[in-house]
């Protein structure tokens, strides 16, 4: 998983610079230094951290370390919502990719 994301980010960062330069040559290089892959990696990292929080809350609930029921439920609900959102974005991205692939020139 991690190597896959790393590979995608390498791919994106290597190809993003020339594209960005060709579209906007006046843009400083510093602004094009945040590629789309960074955005994706941050979002996936966020989902992962919410899942970890949910895991910790549920463990706390089960072992009776003072975690309230609603705290655990809210944590799992947040993690679930973040995952669903990431999944929806991923499905949209794949759909867009497939639409581009099936274009006839």
């Amino acid at each position, binding site marked *: 998983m991690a190597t896959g994301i790393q590979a995608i980010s390498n791919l994106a960062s290597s190809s993003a610079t020339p594209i960005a330069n060709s579209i906007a040559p006046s843009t400083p290089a510093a602004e094009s230094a945040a590629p789309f892959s960074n955005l994706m990696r941050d979002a996936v990292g966020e989902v992962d951290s919410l899942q970890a929080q949910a895991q910790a809350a549920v463990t706390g609930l089960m072992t009776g370390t003072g975690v309230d029921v*609603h705290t655990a439920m809210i944590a799992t609900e947040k993690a679930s919502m973040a995952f669903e959102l990431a999944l929806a974005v991923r499905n949209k991205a794949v759909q867009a990719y497939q639409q581009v692939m099936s274009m006839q020139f």
Partner: protein
Amino acid sequence: MHIESIMSDQLTRYLDVATTQAKLTAQNMANVDTPGYRAMGIDFEAEMRRMLGDGPTAAAPAQAGLEDGLVARPDGNNVSMDRESLNLAEAQLRYRTGITLLKQQYQMTMDAIHADNGK
């Protein structure tokens, strides 16, 4: 990425305070026969106002204090079971209300995420 709304954040605190209220009530009920025990409680609305006034950042937990104005029995205990039952019912009602509203908030976000799955 902030997936929850301001309202769901406030409802989370509402549930926290309602839980504190229920816990204190349980504590008072458990100590109904403890000589010298003084009933504890929170001012729910004041705590909510304080927590909501803090803004969306750090929420200090609700502060419990001794209840005053209660009549103590000869052994120094001032817990009234009638009063505690009322407090418990109130806390349960608040908890259920909070859960229902929070569920609606989450459902709304979920509907937005799955907006184009229905067709």
